[in-house]
Structure formats: C-alpha cells, structure tokens
C-alpha cells in the first residue's frame, strides 16, 4: 500500500504489522499528551516536584537523552570533519537519534518551566552569566542544525526525490553538511558542557560544586567527555535494536566496531578525569564546606553505592569491555558494554540532579524524598514513544541505512 514510499530496493513489513508496531508508542504518546495537557493547563502541581526537588525526573531525562543523543554531533564530527568514511553508513541513524533526543528534550523543557509562554525571555532578557542561558541558546541553535541535517534524509525519500527542486535542495544541503556538522559540534560541545556547568557552578551546593578551569567548572568538560563517550554507544544500541527487530544487517561491522572502540577509549579517558575530579573535589571542596565525603552518601537511598555504580560498575567495566576486541566483537558483549556505558552516564546525570537537590546543605534542613507522579512518567515515556515512532517511520520510509540494500541482497524486494 505504502510501498511506493519505501526506499529503493528494500523490504518492509506490511502496513498492518507496522500499524500494530506503532500502537504501543502511540499509546505512550497519548499518555504523554494527556500529562502535558494537565501540566500546562493546571500547572506543575500535577507533578511531585517541590521547592526541594526543583528539578526532577524530566531534567534527568532531558540531560540523559541529550547525553545519549551526543552520538549525532560526534558521529557527524567524525564523518564530515575528520572524514571517517565508514561512518557514512551510520551517520543518518545517529542524526535521527540526535534529532529525536534534542527535540524531545526541548519539548520536555517547554513543559518543565512554570511559565512556558515566557520561555523566550531567556533570549529576550538573557543573563549571560547563567549557564542555563548558554544551554538554551546552544540547544535551540543545535536543534536547528539537527533539523537541517535531518532534512536531506527526508528529501531522499523515493517520492520526494522525484520533485527536482527538492532533490536539488537536498543535494545542496548534503554538500555543505560539513559546515553544519562543524557548527553542530561547536554548539553541542558548548551546551553539553553548559549542562554540566549548570551543576558545577552551584557553588553553594558542595555536592555539585566543582573547581573552575577558567570560567568553566570541571563538570563542563566532564559532561562533554561523558556525552561523546556514551552517545556513540547509544547509536550502536539503537542500530542493533533496529537490526534485531527488522532481522536484517543494516550497518557494516567496521562502522560499529570503530564507534565501539572509540567509545571505549573515550570512556576510559573520561573516567580518568572523573576519578581525578572526584578525588580533588573530595579533598578540597568537600572539606572546605565542613563536610566529609561520606556525608553526601548517607541520606535516604543515596548511599555510596551511587559512586561505586557510576564510576565502577557502569564506568570502568564497560570501558574495559569496549577496549578488549574479543568482547567488543562478540555481539552480546558489545550490547552489554554499550548498555552499561549508557546506564553509567544516565546514573551520572541522575546523581548530579537528584542527589544534589536531595542532600540538604544546612545542617538542620531535613531530607525529603521524591517519587514522580504518573503525569511526570507520562511526559518522560512520551519521549520514548516519540523516539520509537519517529525512528520507525524514518526507517520505513527513508534510506536511513544506506548500506541496507547492499548488506541484505537476498531480501531485495
């Protein structure tokens, strides 16, 4: 029925099966839509956020998806700026994942602020000292870049390509993609950093505060580093998931292995810096605030397990796994390592957001706990649904994986 829209020479499931596949994601979107409506109409009282937990699950999700979406800018950088040709087979997927993550995050932020209709005041009355201003500027600009990067992929749809002007436009865009990739890299670098900086500059919160390097706290660099270490792994995971569901090979191993190996090294590098940073922090900032390291790890569920899990189990372990070729080349090993890597980064973002707020600074302030409401989960899950849906539609109708035909000769339809 819709086969005229499929990319040239590939096989796709029947519309019925595809519709069934989209149902759960549409359901998530509907749940999210209702939640969003309630939050916008009735206000943020629909959530369990509070004056203590000013940031909550949405910001965790935001920072997590933005970190995981870093595959887009980093792969783009490697493909277009460094010129790693083998990544051309995965760059489209990386861009779409990036677009999903960033657009989802921006939409979520629109609901997260108390006065969405005034959101543009960040630009209108910008306070240049605020890390969040930098984040807002860079994220909106980078979302624009991602959209520009996404357009040529859309224009490559078999039917759209038939319109000469559009085809030409897409072609032209492709030509200058290097410029956008470089811009994207620049913007991405800064907002990933600023997101980290947001926490590092909270100098009255000793748990988050990090020492400065020029105007940037170390978290600025750690967030960039961790994002580029985890982003490619997330791209790999998405690709592998698509391969598993479509039961096809979509990306040549060399691209995946290159990204995996690179992730391994980046993660190792990140961990070295993270461990140094943690050590320095524990020996300067923490004692200066009159505290000991363990003072941060005794409130409620936030024990020292956080640090062990973040750096050890979901840090060092996947780094080592990714660096050992035998593990990396084993399909299961690769998936496990990538999953652990991504988990570690999500945990890192979680710790910086939730634990920072949960641990009171004043000695007499009490510990409060927080559990999200269904509305908060709804918005968060809508992002998952939106991601699956957009990626599925893109996969179905757009030549996301340029090597698909080549890698699956038997299935040509």
């Amino acid at each position, binding site marked *: 029925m819709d086969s005229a829209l499929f990319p040239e020479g590939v096989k796709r499931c029947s519309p019925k099966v595809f519709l069934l596949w989209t149902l759960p994601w549409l359901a998530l979107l509907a749940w999210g839509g209702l939640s969003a409506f309630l939050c916008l109409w009735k*206000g*943020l*009282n629909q959530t369990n*956020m*509070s*004056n*203590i*937990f*000013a*940031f909550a699950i949405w910001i965790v999700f935001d920072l997590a998806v933005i970190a995981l979406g870093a595959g887009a800018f980093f792969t783009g950088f490697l493909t277009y700026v460094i010129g790693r040709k083998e990544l051309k087979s995965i760059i489209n997927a990386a861009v779409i994942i990036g677009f999903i993550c960033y657009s989802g995050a921006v939409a979520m932020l629109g609901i*997260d*602020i*108390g*006065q969405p209709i*005034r*959101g543009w*005041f*960040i630009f*209108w*009355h*910008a*306070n240049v*000292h*605020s*890390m*969040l*201003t930098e984040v*807002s500027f860079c994220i909106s600009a980078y979302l624009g870049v991602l959209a520009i990067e996404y357009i040529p992929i859309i224009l490559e749809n078999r039917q759209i390509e038939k319109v000469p002007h559009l085809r030409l436009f897409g072609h032209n865009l492709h030509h200058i993609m290097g410029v956008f990739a470089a811009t994207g890299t620049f913007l991405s670098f800064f907002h990933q950093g600023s997101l980290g900086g*947001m926490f590092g*500059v*909270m*100098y*009255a*919160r*000793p748990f988050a505060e990090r020492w400065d390097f020029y105007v940037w706290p170390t978290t600025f660099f750690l967030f960039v580093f961790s994002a580029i270490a985890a982003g490619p792994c997330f791209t790999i995971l998405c690709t592998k998931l698509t391969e598993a569901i479509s039961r096809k090979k979509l990306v040549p191993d060399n691209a995946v292995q290159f990204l995996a190996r690179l992730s391994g090294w980046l993660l190792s590098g990140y961990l070295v810096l993270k461990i140094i940073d943690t050590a320095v922090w524990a020996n300067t900032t923490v*004692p*200066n*605030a*009159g*505290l*000991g390291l363990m*003072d941060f790890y005794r409130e409620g569920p936030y024990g020292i397990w956080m640090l062990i899990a973040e750096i050890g189990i979901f840090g060092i372990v996947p780094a080592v796994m990714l660096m050992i070729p035998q593990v990396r080349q084993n399909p299961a090993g690769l998936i496990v390592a990538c999953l652990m890597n991504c988990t570690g980064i999500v945990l890192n973002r979680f710790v910086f957001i939730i634990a*920072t*707020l949960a641990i*009171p*600074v*004043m*000695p*007499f*302030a009490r510990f*409060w706990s927080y559990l999200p409401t269904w509305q908060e989960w709804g918005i968060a899950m809508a992002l998952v649904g939106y991601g699956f849906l957009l990626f599925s539609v893109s996969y179905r109708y757009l030549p996301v994986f340029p090597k698909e035909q080549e890698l699956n000769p038997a299935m040509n339809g």
Partner: protein
Amino acid sequence: MKATEGKYKYGMVINLDKCTGCGTCTVACAAENNLSVIRDETDKQRTISWMQLFKVTNGKPFPDTEVSYFPRPCMHCHNHTPCVSVCPPTATKMDYNNGIVSQIYTRCIGCRYCQAACPYQARYFNWWDGHFPKGTERYLSPEVSVRMRGVVEKCSFCHHRLMRAKEQAYAEDRRELEDGEYITACTEVCPAEAITFGDLNDPDSKVAKLSKHPQAFRLLERIGTEPKVYYISSKDWVRRMADNYHPNEFQPV
C-alpha cells in the same frame, strides 16, 4: 564576583535567645507580602513561606531535650549571590545600592534553577495559583503584586517598606532614612523583639552593632555567600547547627 559596595547594606540580626518560635514573623510576612495560600498548607515542600521556621533540637534524651528555632528569611547573600548568577532571564538581581536581592515575578519563567542553587531553601515556586476563599482577596495589599502560578518568589526584605519609608522621608524633606524607619514586617511584629533590621553600613545602627556581637554568626558561613542575615545565640549547640563542621572543629564562644 565581589559585589560593588553600595551606599547602603540592609541586613538583619535575629536573636535566637529571644526567639520563642511563635511564628508571628511568618504570619506577618505572609500578610504583608500577599503570600498565596494553597489548599493544603501542610504540604511543607510546596507551601510558600518567605520567613520559614526551622526547628532544631539538641538531641538529648528526656528531660534534657531542648528545642530552638531558626527563623529563616532570604539571606540576601552579598557575595556571588548563588541565585542571581544562575537566573537565565535576569529575573533576580542584587541591588548594589542597598544589597537587597530582588525577584521580578513578571520576568520569571519558572525554570527553578535559582531554587536549586540556593542552599538556604529560601526560594519558593508557585506550584498553584493562590487560593482565595470568597472575600479574602480583600485583605491583599496593593504594595506588593500578587504572584501568578509558575514563578519563583522569596523574601524581599519588604522592599516596598523601604519605598514607603522613603516617600515618608521625602514628604518631610529628608533624603536619608533614620535607623529604624525602614524595617521589615517580621522585625516590626516580633513580640519578643528578637529581630533587628537596618543598615549594616551605618556603624551607629543597632543592626550593625549587633552583627558584631561575639555570639553573632551566619548560616553556612564557610560557603562564602556572606549572608546579610545574622543570628545570635548564647547556646553552643544552636551555634553549631548553623554550619557544617568537621569533628572537633567547632569552637564554643
């Protein structure tokens, strides 16, 4: 970012020996500043109370237990005011001329970054629109605008009272205010007269003298925010509550 020193520097000293924990400061503040009331005021994580009471106990068993209170307004941090630098749309600023940290409700977008940055929990978000049972909008004062939901607010040191005092002074052909002419609502109402308010830059003011009391201290001093709110207590265990200390570090006065 050290503040450029302005002419005035308004601050507060709260004597915890005098403070009875009665909460009149909180109520007077709410009445003065049109604080909203939500349907469940026992929801302490989401209710708004610019002047909040924190209860502390010495932790000793019966019958040696003691309780004390920290009434906590906004500290109006003088140094690198943590909330000001993080606010993306410039909705909060410190007025260098008098040291008061402002919050402009109509500018605020409700991102709550300032709340995250403030270690004193002095900032409050309007999770709801205020609930005004029929007729109660009549007690609202026109001197402070009523906040809409979705914005952050906090103690303003009753800034409108400064404006009020200035207008009064101008009407009397004076430009300068006398000590005590501008005080906050909590200072005025405290039945134990535990709160003193005035210009810390004026060496003759009561507040400046009290801030140099040997038993005077500030909250979380080692973080370096330089609050303009001081406390006085003769009790070591109370003073020890004001900051984080390493074992054996605290020096009794």
